[in-house]
């Protein structure tokens, strides 16, 4: 839906370039006049924020890489060198470490927004897939990045997570040896993780490009989840959404700055300020917070292989979400049953995250299994909801819904007045 190019210029140089490489009309059609639904709410800010975070991580990461040494004997000390001796090194490292967490917060909200408003449904299935691929690549990147300071949690987290692959039948142990580059997490592991940690963000960048390509083909979904009927339902991306995104970046940047400057270690684990020691296992090995829900699912299954299958399954099941959801209505605003189910799923994810940070003992084992079952139950009941749920009546168009609600940008009112379909 990228607007056909209405780009014109009188500048001779611009015209010369444009004739040979139509880059100006490309930017013009995809970031200036690009028609965007007029009713997007603030949850739609997360996409541009995620893009900004990716760039910030790459920039800070490249500078950190100039001062970091990927060697088992030097990595921890070089991290402290960055913190103490490199000009503004503390700022760069805290920005990068907390930036990772903030990136995940943004992406989790982005994913949940997509689920709530049914953004994964036709014709945006491939757009959704690209998002999941980005998410999985992000998890791999973050995991390997956390290993680099070579603290206790780096080392033992790496040991636990890479050991998961030993659950693969027959070739499991060989895979683990291959990943480690030896018979334990050691220098070769650190060195290759460093290399891959540097590579992955650029791979993510590539997938983000495809994600945006798919997005711009049909345009954004919107809180009503209905297709645009005509030009009256759209506004140009610039200035409306450029300024709205900038405002969102201001708010997000302020929250980020508060964490970065006043609680930079809050989301980290104190054990990672202890140098890695293969002979001393920490009392509780916990991954970074953004992995905790998946860590809880892994530990909920008493069998190692099926635990690993469940953990990866909890991610991969997202790929088939567009087909598990049989409802024709996208937005949860018009789907009373799905709406409840969604919030139950959301709370379940928080519970899983909480349990993932607790030692696997007593009540946490039972709760972890229950929460894991509920996680998958969400996807299992989803197809049936689409069949028996009676959605509320959809508004005729985005403009009518916006007008009906008095222009307040809260079109729920339109939905509330409408009679149930059927």
């Amino acid at each position: 839906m990228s607007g056909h190019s209405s780009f014109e210029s009188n500048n001779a140089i611009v015209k010369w370039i444009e004739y040979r490489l139509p880059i100006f009309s490309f930017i013009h059609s995809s970031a200036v006049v690009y028609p965007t639904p007029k009713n997007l709410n603030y949850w739609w800010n997360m996409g541009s924020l995620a893009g900004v975070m990716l760039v910030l991580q790459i920039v800070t990461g490249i500078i950190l890489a100039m001062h970091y040494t990927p060697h088992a004997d030097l990595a921890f000390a070089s991290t402290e060198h960055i913190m103490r001796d490199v000009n503004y090194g503390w700022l760069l490292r805290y920005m990068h470490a907390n930036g990772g967490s903030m990136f995940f917060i943004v992406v989790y909200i982005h994913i949940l927004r997509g689920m709530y408003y049914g953004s994964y449904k036709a014709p945006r299935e491939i757009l959704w897939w690209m998002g999941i691929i980005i998410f999985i690549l992000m998890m791999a990147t973050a995991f390997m990045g956390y290993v680099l300071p070579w603290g206790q949690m780096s080392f033992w987290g790496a040991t636990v997570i890479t050991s998961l692959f030993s659950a693969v039948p027959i070739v499991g142990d060989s895979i683990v040896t291959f990943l480690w580059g030896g018979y334990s997490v050691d220098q070769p592991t650190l060195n290759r993780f460093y290399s891959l940690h540097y590579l992955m963000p650029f791979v993510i960048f590539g997938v983000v490009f495809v994600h945006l390509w798919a997005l711009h083909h049909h345009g954004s979904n919107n809180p009503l989840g209905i297709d645009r009927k005509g030009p009256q339902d759209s506004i140009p991306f610039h200035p409306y959404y450029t300024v709205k995104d900038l405002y969102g970046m201001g708010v997000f940047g302020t929250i980020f700055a508060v964490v970065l400057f006043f609680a930079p270690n809050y989301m980290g684990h104190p054990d990672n300020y202890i140098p890695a020691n293969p002979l001393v296992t920490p009392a509780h090995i916990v991954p970074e917070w953004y992995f905790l829900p998946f860590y809880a699912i892994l530990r909920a299954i008493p069998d190692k292989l099926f635990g690993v299958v469940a953990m990866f399954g909890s991610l991969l099941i997202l790929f088939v979400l567009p087909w598990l959801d049989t409802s024709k209505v996208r937005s949860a605003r018009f789907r009373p049953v799905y709406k409840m189910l969604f919030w139950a799923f959301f709370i379940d994810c928080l519970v899983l995250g909480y349990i993932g940070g607790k030692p696997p003992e007593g009540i946490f084992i039972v709760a972890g299994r229950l929460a894991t079952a509920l996680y998958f139950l969400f996807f299992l009941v989803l197809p049936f909801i689409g069949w028996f749920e009676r959605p509320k009546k959809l508004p005729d168009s985005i403009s009518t819904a916006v007008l009906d609600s008095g222009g307040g940008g809260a079109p729920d009112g339109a939905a509330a007045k409408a009679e149930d379909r059927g």
Partner: protein
Amino acid sequence: MRKFFLIAAFTALFASPLATPVALAAGDVEHPLEIKWNHGGVFGTFDRAAVQRGLQVYREVCSGCHGLKYIAFRNLLEIGLNEDQAKAIAAEYTMIDGPDNEGEMFERPGKLSDYLPSPFDNEMAARASNNGALPPDLSLMVKARAGAENYLYSLLVGYSDAPDGVTVAEGMNYNPYFPGHQIAMAPPVDDEAVDYIDGTKNSKEQIAKDVVTFLAWAAEPTLEARKRMGVKVVLYLLILTFVLYLVKRKVWADVH
């Protein structure tokens, strides 16, 4: 604006329960005492006098067993010592340098660029002198323990007799704040363990508080720069965000 607070609150809600994965080991560990630290809070700065007293405590008490390898003598200029004082302290240490032109290692007095020497040559030597226990390096101790300053302070002042029914192993000491309650380190500070140069009363609590303040500085010498910059950045972003909000409203006034 209202919606944005909603989103901000949602973000906080989303992050907070997940962001406290720090599992304190052994559930029966005593909760650390709550001490007010001068370097805590948004505008916190290190109490220079306390840091300097803490340096004295470290040198006279801790350094017998614990290293501080990420601190160089030049760093002491940051806690208010002048160059002559820092050089004098460095010169009290003997460093091994070399090889010289004959290929021999030689001894020389410490310089500002030297790092504080560790008390033992290696882990084996440290364990041999400490009943098998390894006294950890203290450079990052404040950041490497859940509870941070409060935990270290509590540990230092919290030694007590073992309760009835608890047998303390040979060479171990009872401390309710330590995970497992049995710690190899003997009570390190006591009243009058150090005679302060500046005449401050040398109670056990004062000594503990000073040395923990010193270790907090050692763990993060850039803390003050971070907080100073943070105040400016947050203020700047608040104003910028407010302006962007006004621009957004103005631009969007004709939509709907």
